[in-house]
């Protein structure tokens, strides 16, 4: 419709206009929600209208404003960012539907502010996805942190206050304390902060400096939740579930690992990193996070807390992919961003649906709930399987490429780590489903069935699902997990250009 550059800029502008629209229509909830939905659909259409050009290798660039001499706020769409933006904008639509169901179903207060912050957060996510240089990335990264703070503390009680403190403390602390100095240091070393294919540090930094810079970047990007700075993610689970779903399974955490990938690919450069060997420690930290977070997840009884630790572990896959610095591993990391987003959002949607329907948060209380909410639990099963990485679900591809990457790098131990982690995933996800279907509800016991007879635990009478707006979204995302298995090839072709120098 417009010039390509206009579409890129519109990706930021549409959600902001939406936020203003929500503010103006705050007194009429139905119109307000319509505005949210229309905005999200428009944004998604807009993002996908950019896609064909990117597939053809065009890299549209938009200079928003010259912030400092020679460093502007620049938007530049490249394949990786395109992928991220497409995922985030698609999931925003589904999430908006879900938010409406959840917020109304639970009679949450202050809904207008909620939707406004949500829209701003999405605008920031688009900014992160399309950022053309480190400074732009940093700016939107911070906007994202600040705009999600009100969402995390939405409940405004003591828990929310405490969770908000940890959330903000860690994210702002690491970004200002480590990320920003790293950016400025990069600038003084190279005189540029642009994302350039093949990296900009080669020839400007010694191996020692590279190691320190990598440390600053990796721990500066706190959103990637590398241990030991992962504490904010469980803390942020005090938020309403739609927030946890979109922001902490998709936008915020993915902005983190996306930044990690971007920095590794476009600032350090895969080859430079591989030759200096500066990323070796990162591989092991990521591997440790991978296993440790899974083990912690096993011990959590609160469903959202378990999912949070699962997220930490899954994010480490992406960091691991980046740190191995081989093209297959990086491809695996990039695919993981997409696949995990759909899988994890399904799980969060289900958690929220359960909460809305029966107000349960602890896994031990969810025995036999599958009989009451079969659709939710089947969606949960599909999401789980995708995260574990079984075909024919999308998640299998990312794991596959990561394995290939580990093989390519001759890291036999990493392959074992990946294997163990998958087993752990099974151990902490599948029992939830199994208990849901095969155990009697709490306080009840199944009647003994005589040998030779069969009795179904399922009956239409028992079904008591959450409101439609809460059930439909997980079904959609679960279906998407299946569809993505077959879409892996186009996605791979989209991101291929960044892998070949």
């Amino acid at each position, binding site marked *: 419709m417009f010039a390509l550059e206009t579409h890129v800029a519109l990706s930021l502008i549409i959600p902001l206009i939406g936020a203003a629209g929500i503010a103006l229509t705050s007194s009429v909830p139905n119109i307000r929600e319509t505005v949210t939905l229309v905005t999200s659909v428009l944004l998604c259409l807009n993002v996908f209208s950019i896609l064909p050009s990117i597939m053809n290798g065009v890299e549209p660039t938009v200079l928003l404003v*010259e*912030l400092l001499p020679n460093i502007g706020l620049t938007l530049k769409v490249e394949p990786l960012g395109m992928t991220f933006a497409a995922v985030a904008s698609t999931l925003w639509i589904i999430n908006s539907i879900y938010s409406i169901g959840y917020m109304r179903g639970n009679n949450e207060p202050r809904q207008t502010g909620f939707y406004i912050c949500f829209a701003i957060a999405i605008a920031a996510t688009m900014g992160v996805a399309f950022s053309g240089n480190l*400074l732009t990335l940093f700016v939107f990264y911070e906007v994202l942190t600040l705009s999600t703070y009100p969402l995390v*503390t939405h409940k405004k009680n003591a828990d929310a206050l405490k969770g908000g403190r940890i959330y903000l*403390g860690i994210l*702002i*602390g690491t970004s200002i*304390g*480590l990320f920003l100095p790293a950016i400025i240091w990069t600038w*003084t070393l190279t005189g540029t902060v642009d994302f350039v294919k093949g990296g900009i540090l080669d020839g400007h930094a010694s191996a020692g400096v590279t190691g320190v810079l990598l440390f600053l970047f990796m721990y500066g990007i706190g959103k990637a939740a590398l241990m030991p700075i992962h504490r904010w993610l469980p803390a942020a689970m005090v938020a309403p579930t739609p927030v946890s779903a979109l922001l902490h399974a998709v936008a915020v955490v993915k902005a983190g690992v996306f930044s990690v990938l971007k920095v590794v690919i476009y600032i350090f450069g895969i080859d430079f990193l591989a030759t200096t060997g500066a990323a070796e420690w990162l591989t092991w930290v990521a591997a440790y996070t991978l296993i440790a977070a899974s083990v912690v997840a096993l011990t959590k009884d609160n469903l959202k807390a378990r999912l949070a630790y699962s997220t930490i572990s899954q994010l480490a896959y992406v960091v691991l992919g980046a740190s191995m610095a081989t093209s297959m591993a990086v491809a695996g990391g990039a695919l993981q961003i997409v696949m995990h987003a759909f899988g994890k959002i399904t799980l969060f949607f289900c958690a929220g649906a359960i909460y809305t329907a029966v107000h349960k948060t602890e896994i031990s209380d969810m025995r036999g709930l599958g009989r009451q909410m079969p659709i939710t639990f089947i969606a949960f099963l599909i999401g789980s399987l995708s995260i574990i990485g079984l075909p024919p679900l999308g998640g299998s591809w990312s794991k596959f490429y990561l394995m290939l990457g580990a093989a390519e790098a001759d890291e036999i131990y990493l392959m074992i780590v990946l294997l163990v982690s998958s087993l752990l995933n099974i151990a902490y996800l599948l029992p939830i489903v199994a208990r849901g279907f095969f155990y009697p509800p709490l306080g009840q016991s199944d009647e003994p069935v005589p040998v030779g007879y069969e009795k179904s635990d399922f009956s239409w009478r028992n079904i008591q699902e959450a409101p439609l707006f809460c059930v439909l979204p997980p079904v959609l995302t679960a279906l998407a997990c299946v569809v993505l298995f077959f879409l892996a090839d186009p996605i791979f072709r989209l991101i291929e250009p960044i892998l070949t120098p």
Partner: protein
Amino acid sequence: MLSLSSQFPILVAIAPLMTAPICALFRGKAAPWAITTIASAFAFYISLQLLLTVASSGPISYELGGWAPPWGIEYVVDLLSGFMLVLISGVSTGVLLFARESITKEVPTSQLGLFFAAYLLALTGMLGICITGDAFNVFVFLEIMSLSSYALIAMGERTDRRALTAAFQYLIIGTVGATFYLIGVGLIYMMTGTLNIADIAARFPEIEGTRPILAAVGFIVIGLAIKLALFPFHVWLPNGYTYAPSIITAFFAGTATKVSVYLLIRYIFTVFGVDYSFEGLELTDILLPLAVLGFLSMSAVAIYQSNLKRLLAYSSVAQIGYIILGLALANETGLTASIVHIFNHAIVKTGLFLSVGCMFFVVGSTYLKDLEGIGRRMPITTFGFVLGGLGLIGVPLTPGFISKWYLVVAALEKGSVIGYGIVALLMISSLLAVIYIWRVVEVAYFREMPEGTVKEEAPISLLVPTWLFILGSFYFGIETSFNVGIAKAAAAFLMGGA
């Protein structure tokens, strides 16, 4: 020569000076305020014109009474002083817009004429310091500014009688500082026989390193350090800012200490010269530790304050630390950072103090315990405060970020362990700022409103100027060509050994 614009350099200082006695004659609410605002806006207009002229055709020299320098007093407008003039008169005008309604709650109507007369004198002093090219004339303007500011701070007495003791304390310390400066000027005059700053600078290389000059440098640097509230000479500032009327705090926070910083920059870079200041005298070794200690300790102290104005006052002392750090780094980027931060901090801090002024107008107190739930009670004001607070922290898109960027670059350019250490300490201090701002946010949004209070906003005449500064701060944080452009040019000019 007789055109009005050729008289601009004198008019900028004379206009508020001459208006002051007229203002004192008027009684009532509106008249003194209107006169003051017009005078201040006029000064702002002239300052802008001067800055434009300087930017396009180089420094302006004005001979007072037609006596050629170095015999007569010379007024000089260069890029830096033009920049300061615009800043001071701009902040003053913005604050005055706020004053009309706010001041009636804090100062008795019968004293408004005198109050605004003192305000105009303070403005005169600040503008005069920046424009004059004569070392002794600086002292005169410095005292005009100081004497009127003692009186203005004491005016807060109606709200809290501690304003009186704060003003007295400031008077004692301020006079000591100014007198130190006077001794320094005397010593320089003894050695050079001139008071014209450019003339002193020209003769300085012959006499540098002599004992009277060493003493002069010591007296001037310490005198100015007292005036600009460099840690540990800052004790007068938190009390003064806490108990002064809202608009006075907002005005002084943006300008008063900055003027002294300007003077220090002038002396270090123009008079003493870069080489002598940093290689001969090694001022870095003195200023740098004080600056670093200043911003770290004062940010930490700010966290524990129970009064919002006092919290911001300590934060101001910390910001002075950043500014001094920039010039102590003794490279061009550092000086740019200092000058940019003078401007950026003025905008941000004035906006913050004005929003606190709004809260005081409605609530009648600035203690955090009385401001619980203020985010729901006064949503617009509080949101403005939070946005301003982000500027203080240095979140991107705010001017604080720009300053911090240049400071860190300057520290990295300095290299060595000290440079990297400073970067780390700067970041720690930013995080301390997060804590003290977030303490306020939590009080404002997470505590319940006191019983019986309803949602009520400050009047529109208070909100508009407040938001003018808040939005202005974002403007200058995003479109930086004005502040950074001028600061860069001025820094290059000063480092060039002019």
